């Protein structure tokens, strides 16, 4: 017989077994429960702890009081120049009219006032395009997200730049516009009927019963119609050209860091996989790239791209200064992200690869479906940390003569009407950075909690 059971089970000759009865669980002591219990345990558990608590509260109070008095209590809200502010409250209160007068420039830089609607429109398109990603009933989230990241830039760059458009450029812009229309249409049909846009068209034409091949052709034709409409719309648009040196403020900061963020993650994933590759040449190249860009300060890279790149390019080829800065930021961010992703990949046990390949999955399937989802989930805090860092690092482009948010804030105090007004614009810009970065960080926490459902025991 099998001998898999414990050797004690069949030992005979013992006295009859006593019955084990577990003790019932009791409620925790009342003094440790609720808010009062928490305060007593964590803030006033001993005399030194109580002293530290009170001291801490006093410091917070003093700090907040000083800031609020300056920013709100003594602040001047209406004045036409800095002299008037100083006459009213001296330096004891903030002079907000200066910031208010400069807000359009802080946000849009020197972008022509009558064209600012183009930036607002692009922001609105971005927002509308992203909304379906939060709607639970929309199933094509991956496709919409990808279309957003890959094709919104085409549409946005035309809105921002404007000017003449050749045939190829028109076709690309129309592609961006068509993707936007498709995202809207498919969201609408999925919210109402649960069918994707192409399936909906097939159904509406009464062709549901036809073969898979036929319905695929009909869906494709529907997409072609959307593209044709977009192409006509784009042909009809005629936006005036706005040079990139007029771009500035929060707008420019968002453009540079947005592209940096959108490029750095996929590029980082590719670099990290390349570095771990078994092919020595690929691994060597990826490692060399990553280490080179990580070992050099961002400022240096920006300078290199700004001043040295033109020397290496053939005469007559001119690369826009903003584009140079964006490329530099992207390469730098990709190198950092590659190491973040590599760290995540290393945290995944080898057994996960083995289980996937034992099932017959190839390398790319195993990486894309098993390893990456887990690695990226672990790395969310670090990835978002990098995004936040990148968003703030873009202030460095002011050094090569681009007017980002921070440089615009500095320009306020150089305006003759508001001469010397530095503190208030910086305070304002600090608030903008804080809101943006804190928002990102909160979103990442939220994302982590939602994704870690499986890890909760």
């Amino acid at each position: 017989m099998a001998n898999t059971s414990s050797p004690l089970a069949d030992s005979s000759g013992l006295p009859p077994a006593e019955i084990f009865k577990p003790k019932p669980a009791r409620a925790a002591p009342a003094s440790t429960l609720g808010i009062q219990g928490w305060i007593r345990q964590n803030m006033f558990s001993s005399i030194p702890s109580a002293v530290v608590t009170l001291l801490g509260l006093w410091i917070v109070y003093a700090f907040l009081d000083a800031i609020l008095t300056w920013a709100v209590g003594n602040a001047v809200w209406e004045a036409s120049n800095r002299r008037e502010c100083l006459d009213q409250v001296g330096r004891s209160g903030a002079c907000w009219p200066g910031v208010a007068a400069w807000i359009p420039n802080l946000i849009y830089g020197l972008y022509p006032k009558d064209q600012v609607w183009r930036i607002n429109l692009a922001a609105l398109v971005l927002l509308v395009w992203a909304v379906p990603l939060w709607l639970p009933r929309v199933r094509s989230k991956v496709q919409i997200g990808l279309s957003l990241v890959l094709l919104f830039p085409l549409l946005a760059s035309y809105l921002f730049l404007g000017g003449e458009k050749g045939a190829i450029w028109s076709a690309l812009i129309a592609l961006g516009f068509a993707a936007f229309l498709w995202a809207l249409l498919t969201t609408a049909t999925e919210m109402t009927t649960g069918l994707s846009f192409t399936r909906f068209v097939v159904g509406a034409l009464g062709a549901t019963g036809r073969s898979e091949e036929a319905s695929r052709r009909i869906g494709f034709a529907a997409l072609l119609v959307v593209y044709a409409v977009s192409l006509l719309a784009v042909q009809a648009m005629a936006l005036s050209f706005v040079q990139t040196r007029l771009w500035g403020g929060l707008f420019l900061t968002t453009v540079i860091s947005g592209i940096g963020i959108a490029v750095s993650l996929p590029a980082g994933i590719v670099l990290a996989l390349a570095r771990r590759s078994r092919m020595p040449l690929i691994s060597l190249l990826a490692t060399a790239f990553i280490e080179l860009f990580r070992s050099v300060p961002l400022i240096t890279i920006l300078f290199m791209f700004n001043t040295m790149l033109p020397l290496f390019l053939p005469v007559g080829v001119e690369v826009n200064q903003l584009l140079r800065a964006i490329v530099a930021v992207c390469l730098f961010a990709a190198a950092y992200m590659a190491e973040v992703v590599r760290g995540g990949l290393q945290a995944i046990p080898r057994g996960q690869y083995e289980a996937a390949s034992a099932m017959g999955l190839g390398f790319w399937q195993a990486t894309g479906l098993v390893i990456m989802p887990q690695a990226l989930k672990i790395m969310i805090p670090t990835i978002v940390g990098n995004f936040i860092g990148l968003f703030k690092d873009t202030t460095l482009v002011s050094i090569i003569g681009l007017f980002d948010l921070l440089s615009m804030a500095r320009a306020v105090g150089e305006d003759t009407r508001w001469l010397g007004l530095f503190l208030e614009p910086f305070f304002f810009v600090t608030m903008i950075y804080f809101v943006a970065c804190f928002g990102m960080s909160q979103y990442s926490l939220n994302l982590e909690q939602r994704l870690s459902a499986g890890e909760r025991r």
Partner: protein
Amino acid sequence: MNEAVAEAPPIELIGLNKWFGAFHVLKDIDLRVREGERIVVCGPSGSGKSTMIRCINQLETHQEGTIRIHGRSYGRDARENDAIRREIGMVFQSFNLFPHLTVLENCTFALTWVRHMPKQEAEDLAMSFLARVRIPEQAGKYPLQLSGGQQQRVAIARALCARPRIMLFDEPTSSLDPEMINEVLDTMVELAESGMTMVVVTHEMGFARKVADRVIFMDQGEIVEEAPPEAFFAAPRYDRTRLFLSQVL
């Protein structure tokens, strides 16, 4: 040709040699497993038993010798290798379930992504195997919410979903709490009774006695001896085998 394939044994290892760097892990392994045969492989740690069964589905590559699965041998063609592998299911010591997927998704994973089976069909098949390992009620949970024994049973169901003709077990009970070993062994016994060809690396000698057609003892990268369980436990031929048995029994 087709007849030859049909008659070919599920697993054939001929003159298998493998090195990890300079270290010779497998030395001239010859093994032939018949259809429906249950083989238990035992031996001290470092004897090469895990490496041997990992070679069978090419989680490890070998340097010399031939491995034939139902008459087809591994070669340069990656697609052909993947096709051969799909005949083989594997259960690991550390379960290796995908923690980001539910139990049901773990089971349908290979069906969806390797066999491109429609979702509903895949889920029905997966549920039938979860019922067979007696945990259909856990289908919606994530692996880390289950006990070790339950996780290993899910891993068995997951491997079975791909409809393999051969099952490999690499120390399936070694990382389980003693109280959970039997539930996994019971599942394996049932699987053996259904006629599956199985190669099991384990130290559970009770399981070997009850289920195995042949027990193989390995040491230092060699097959020292192989015999039906009665003969193996009653009258081992080699001193090394006797020493090992005196330590594990």
